């Protein structure tokens, strides 16, 4: 594990560290935050940083640090669920249609094209307006929107793998499509899938926060990064930290994901070139 990390290079390590810090703080938030994130205190409204409130308070007197620590929990959970389901479904579907390479491939890819042509945020707004803003509604909506993109990318990678001899060997043994996809193709496009996971997660977390910012995700008074930005932007000049806090948290997480994807792609790419040489 150590050698894997060292081989991955500094970019990858910084990325993973940023993600880990965000996840750890969000996970531990209920125990480490000094105040109840939704308890208002009209005596301490709109304060700058003090010893009691390190990042100050918002217009209801709620502690910004406590809200920022807790504010990632909803977005990160939805991001994790939605990205995992979307990437898993997209990867399996992509490998399967690449392997089948027949009319099913054509049909699936045309449906993918159709879904991809719908603007993401618009589609989500429609879903939320019709089905409400429950967590699983949003997760499923994001899955529907992002699975096609993953399918297309993974299919591209899987097509070249599925013409290789070890897949032919499995076909000649008379194996069924399922085992061939799972045993032979999927492990060999895993690098693409991992990079895809990191990239999609960064887009999904921004998307979820955008929804909350627009008022379709987390509901007040729940702490949430997108919601906090929306609530506090009117007081931007008075308590800038109340807006900057959640923005910095979100930005570090997204940058972490991008650096990880970058490092991962570079490492796996370099790795492949090296095995070609030796």
């Amino acid at each position: 594990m150590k050698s894997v990390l060292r081989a991955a290079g500094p970019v990858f390590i910084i990325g993973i560290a940023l993600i880990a810090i965000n996840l750890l703080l969000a996970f531990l938030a209920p125990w480490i935050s000094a105040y109840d994130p939704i308890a208002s205190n009209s005596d301490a409204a709109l304060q700058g940083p003090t010893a009691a409130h390190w990042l100050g308070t918002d217009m209801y007197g709620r502690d910004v640090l406590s809200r920022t620590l807790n504010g990632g929990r909803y977005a990160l959970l939805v991001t994790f669920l939605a990205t995992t389901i979307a990437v898993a479904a997209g990867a399996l579907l992509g490998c399967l249609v690449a392997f089948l390479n027949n009319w099913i491939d054509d049909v699936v890819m045309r449906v993918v094209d159709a879904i991809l042509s719908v603007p993401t945020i618009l589609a989500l707004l429609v879903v939320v307006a019709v089905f409400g803003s429950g967590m699983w509604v949003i997760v499923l909506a994001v899955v529907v929107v992002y699975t096609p993109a993953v399918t297309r990318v993974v299919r591209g990678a899987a097509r070249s793998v599925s013409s290789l001899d070890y897949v032919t060997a499995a076909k000649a043994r008379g194996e069924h499509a399922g085992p061939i996809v799972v045993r032979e193709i999927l492990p060999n496009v895993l690098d693409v899938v991992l990079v895809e996971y990191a990239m999609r997660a960064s887009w999904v977390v921004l998307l979820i926060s955008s929804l909350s910012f627009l008022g379709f995700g987390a509901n007040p008074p729940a702490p949430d990064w997108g919601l906090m930005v929306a609530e506090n932007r009117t007081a931007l000049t008075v308590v800038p930290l109340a807006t900057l806090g959640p923005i910095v948290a979100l930005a570090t997480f997204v940058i972490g994901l991008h650096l990880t994807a970058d490092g991962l792609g570079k490492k796996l790419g370099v790795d492949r070139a090296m095995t070609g040489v030796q």
Partner: protein
Amino acid sequence: MSIDASVSGPVQAPAPAGAAVSVENLSISYAAGNALVPVVRDVSFSIAAGRTFGLVGESGSGKSTVARTLLAQLRAGSKVIGGTVRVGTQEVFALPPAELRALRGGTVALVAQNAGQALTPSMRIGAQVHEALTSHGMSASRSQVLLALDQVRLPNVKDMARRYPHELSGGQQQRVSIAMAIAARPDVLVLDEPTTALDVVTQAAVLRLIKDLCHELQTATLIVSHDLGVVSGMADDVAVMRNGRILENQPTAALFGSPQAEYTRELLRDVPKLKTRGAGAGRPVPESGDPSLNEVLVDCKDVTISYNPSGPPAVDSVNLQIHRGETLAVVGESGSGKSTLAWTLAGLRGATSGSLRVEGGGSGRTGGDLGEPVSKRSLELRRMVQLIFQNADTSLNPRRTVAAAIKRPLRLFGTVPRSQEKARVEELLTEVGLPASFGKRLPSQLSGGQRQRVGIARALAAGPDLIIADEITTALDVSVQADILELLSGLQRTHGLSTLFISHDLAVVADVADRVVVMKNGRMVEVGPVDAVLAGPNHPYSASLLASVIEPGDLDLPSAPAEEQTWKDDPEGGWEEPGNGHRIRKWKDA
């Protein structure tokens, strides 16, 4: 041909003392992590104008790396540790970028292994040749482009110039890349495995062409090949490389006549030879006597396989039998339908018409129809036929261990109970000459020959009756090839397997096969016991295959074979039968 008249490019200073190329004490290392791995060590040689120098060696010997330094090209991550490479009077690695561009293609030209990849797919042939001329400051009128194409003996050059690369055959593509290489009248020509991707007949023609052109233009030529025969026929002097060093460097006749290095002697011993082979020098005849009297395992009747209903079939009414315990070789150039036939037998595509009947033999097995694709075959039928692939690098899943690869057919076909799978895997590994501990390794941790052994073990795991070996040694070095062929025939004897051995290499076929089928354009033109086919009489196509074989020690190339087919099928059909199961399709002069 008025070649000299069209020279208008910059003239290089004449090389000193006749050496157009001199490489001195060249060492190159490759950076792997923090360590420097030497790939070329202390290599020195020189080539005089008008002479041809051959570099032979196995893959990884550094021969290509040396060849590319003449163009000042190094693989990313490599660097020159010491020594010099001089072309004419220039030290190539010290050249500024502008002069380096003039050197590449102008003074030194390269013909690479795969011409299909060396040509730009979206440009017409004429435009590419035009570019090769103008980029080195030569005037390139249409007639000069056509002259360049004519010089490499392409037929119908006006039409050729208008075509795209994919509309040409492999041999024609290689001719175009030769035309582009010699367009700027280079002083030095670098040939990096120039004919490895071509079949024997085309190889002989292309080599003959290069040799004549080099003689005409008085270029200093460096030819790199793993094929000792090619180098023997082309080069005046030959150096043998191994692990980045030159082991010996001698005039060709001396090297092949009395090799000094032990390694060279081993290499020469491992090359399968056709011409010096005595009668019956190949496989020992099975104890049961004439294999044709044995039980028939697979019986193909009028098998036709079409990819495209409107086009000509890839395999056209083939009739053949594979007997139990025999090795039947199928020989032919690329596009002859030999691989299509193999893939159909393996069930990867269905036959269009005809029947492929496989007999089950005793013990209650029923056999079945191999005309069905694999999805319609019974488990028993799928088990009976196993495939070994040409390229062991791609036939093993890089993410699964060797043991997992071999275990899969054991599980799928239920060959042994689950509790004995592990023991059986180790048994199979030992049987193919690998330590049982290799089961834990991934394919990337094995050499090419070891991977091919795993491929064989995987095929054996199913307990097959018929093994289809599709060009299984083409990707391997000669010494490894010899080992693999020996392993395969040993296993075949002990297990009583039948083998369908697909190859384009007649010398290999002569060593391993009992009977041979020669295919051309999807049709069988000749079939018979190996010795009878080698002894003749032959169909003209088989004769041209035999004549095109170049063996180590041949100091000249075979005379250029005919470009066009000189024969056609006798319209009345039928076969000549010189006896002993040897049959030749009747033909007439075209």
